[in-house]
């Protein structure tokens, strides 16, 4: 037999085909599914998926979550009522669908409209998103200052959502995006396409604190000249989490900061894979990721910074640091630079280590028990990543999550 195994559909791929056949989708969605079928689920042979073999890991496909009915929306409202706010205008998606009845009235200048438009299905996870999501939600942020909280409130089932967000020239936007409500029966595929106009600034903080069986998140961001993006993600929940970011600038002097903190325990797995494209001169990029990996959990960081021939005077620095708390915890840390311009300053550092025994002993010698001593050092380690978050209310909420996670571990 010489049949290449990739030519045989896995159970999950077959199930996806069946699910799709039962829909009556638009032409672009059909094209996207056809693209997915050509690509198949990504495997470790795909460089970008080397440490997260989705094809092998995705053994069962959840049924598509139905559009929320009145009862579901009421339950969602109750859940939202007890969710402390972390931003200004609250925008809610329930099971992947925009739920205008649960949203705040948008402030003037802010627009939210559904759109059937879709990006090129150039990658399997994005192709699946286009095929299954019922269009995208287009959010136009207003000029001037704005603050938006996007809540994804998800129940069981396969959930697809796509956002297209644009921050106009010179505007300053603070966005908090939270994934809430998911359980071991949730498989999520969320795509965000973000555009920043000239001299716009966006602080975007993502919180993944619920416990989806599968959390696939794709972020594409393009910056105009002198725009600034400060993106942070806290991953403290989810059995299998994959965040893939593709961020770049086509015009000069953009500033890009991508950072995050992953808190992993049990057998959880979180993969952050990013590509940063400097395609114009004078760009600045800072990646700063920290990972705490306990038990038999595993973390992945792959960061690739590409500096195109025209991107002179690029200033890039990438750092990814992991602490392993047990002999069975794993971290794959892979920073990469691809530099095709000669006048650039780019550096990277990646470390994987353990807590410092000298520091632990010092704390113990003062009577602080082992678990508490570890928690103090871990909180300090995580807090240093959270420092990248500009909004103090959001940063406080992140620190609170970090403490809660550490406490849960100690219990």
């Amino acid at each position, binding site marked *: 037999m010489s049949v290449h195994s990739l030519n045989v559909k896995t159970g999950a791929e077959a199930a996806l085909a069946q699910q799709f056949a039962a829909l009556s989708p638009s032409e672009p969605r059909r094209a996207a599914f056809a693209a997915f079928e050509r690509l198949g689920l990504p495997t470790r042979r795909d460089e970008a998926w080397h440490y997260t073999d989705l094809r092998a890991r995705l053994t069962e496909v959840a049924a598509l979550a139905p559009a929320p009915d009145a009862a579901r929306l009421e339950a969602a409202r109750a859940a939202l009522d007890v969710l402390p706010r972390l931003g200004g205008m609250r925008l809610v998606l329930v099971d992947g669908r925009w739920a205008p009845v649960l949203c705040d009235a948008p402030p003037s200048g802010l627009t939210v409209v559904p759109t059937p438009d879709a990006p090129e299905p150039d990658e399997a996870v994005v192709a699946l998103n286009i095929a299954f999501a019922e269009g995208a939600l287009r959010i136009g942020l207003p000029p001037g200052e704005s603050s938006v909280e996007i809540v994804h409130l998800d129940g069981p089932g396969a959930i697809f959502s796509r956002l297209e967000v644009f921050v106009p020239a010179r505007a300053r936007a603070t966005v908090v995006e939270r994934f809430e409500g998911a359980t071991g029966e949730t498989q999520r595929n969320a795509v965000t396409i973000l555009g920043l106009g000239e001299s716009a600034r966006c602080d975007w903080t993502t919180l993944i604190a619920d416990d989806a069986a599968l959390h696939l998140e794709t972020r594409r961001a393009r910056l105009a000249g002198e725009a600034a993006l400060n993106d942070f993600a806290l991953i403290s929940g989810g059995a299998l989490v994959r965040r893939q970011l593709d961020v770049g600038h086509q015009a000069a002097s953009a500033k890009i900061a991508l950072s995050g903190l992953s808190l992993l325990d049990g057998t959880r797995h979180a993969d952050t894979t990013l590509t940063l494209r400097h395609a114009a001169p004078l760009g600045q990029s800072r990646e700063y990721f920290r990972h705490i990996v306990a038990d038999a959990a595993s973390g992945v960081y792959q960061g690739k910074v590409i500096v195109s021939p025209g991107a002179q005077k690029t200033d890039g620095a990438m750092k990814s640091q992991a602490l392993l708390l047990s002999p069975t915890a794993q971290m794959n840390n892979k920073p990469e630079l691809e530099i095709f311009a000669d006048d650039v300053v780019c550096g990277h550092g990646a470390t994987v280590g353990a807590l410092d025994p000298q520091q632990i002993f*010092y704390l113990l010698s003062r009577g602080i028990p082992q678990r508490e001593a570890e928690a103090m050092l871990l909180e300090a380690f995580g807090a240093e990543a959270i420092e990248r978050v500009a909004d103090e209310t959001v940063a406080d909420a992140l620190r609170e999550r970090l403490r809660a996670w550490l406490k849960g571990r100690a219990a």
Partner: protein
Amino acid sequence: MLNVKNLSVSIHGQPILDGLNLTVKAGEVAAIMGPNGSGKSTLSYVIAGKPEYEVTGGEVWLDGENLLELAPDERAAKGVFLAFQYPVEIPGVATMTFLKAALNAQRRARGEADLTTPDFMRAVRGAAASLKVDPDMLKRPVNVGFSGGEKKRVEILQMALLQPRLCVLDETDSGLDIDALRIVSEGVNALRDAGRAFLVITHYQRLLDHIKPDVVHVMSKGRIVKTGGPELALELEKNGYRDYSEAAA
């Protein structure tokens, strides 16, 4: 109070302490002097419970407690305190947070309630004032960017706050200027008490001018090779250790 019996300790298979015997009584200040590398810090670490040392023989008792059977934090709760020769920097942990965690952990271990924040603040401010430590410094991360002398002062501040029964001071005088030496010594003397014992490791008589020892022990090659009164320190200052290096061999 402290009873070290025939203690032998190795690190990475290399013997450092070799059948060491030492008794320190309640209310006593005992000084230990000895050449570099003779094992003074090792002894202090083993009393405090540092894990990388392997105890190959002997016992360490604090009153009725077999210290070698206790974890370092349990020893601290029983009243053991080590002022480190090289205090450890802990980035990201504010000194105040650390002090409060230590104090309350020890109280909990003894079945006492946590201190209220105002009571804690009062205690810290008092200790800081008597040791002339700027309270603003305590907002900074533990020992990070502290000068050598500041680190030593904050060690003694911790000791004053935690009120241990057995205080082991490992070269607390090194790095202190003349005024700081006096302030720190006064801090130590203020803690002298019939229920408390001190083991003061030093190379210099000048500390013992301020903290007057009851007993002076000379350590060489992992053993106590001579014990005497305060005059022994003066004699060492004059003659050095040459008489004792042979004694241990």
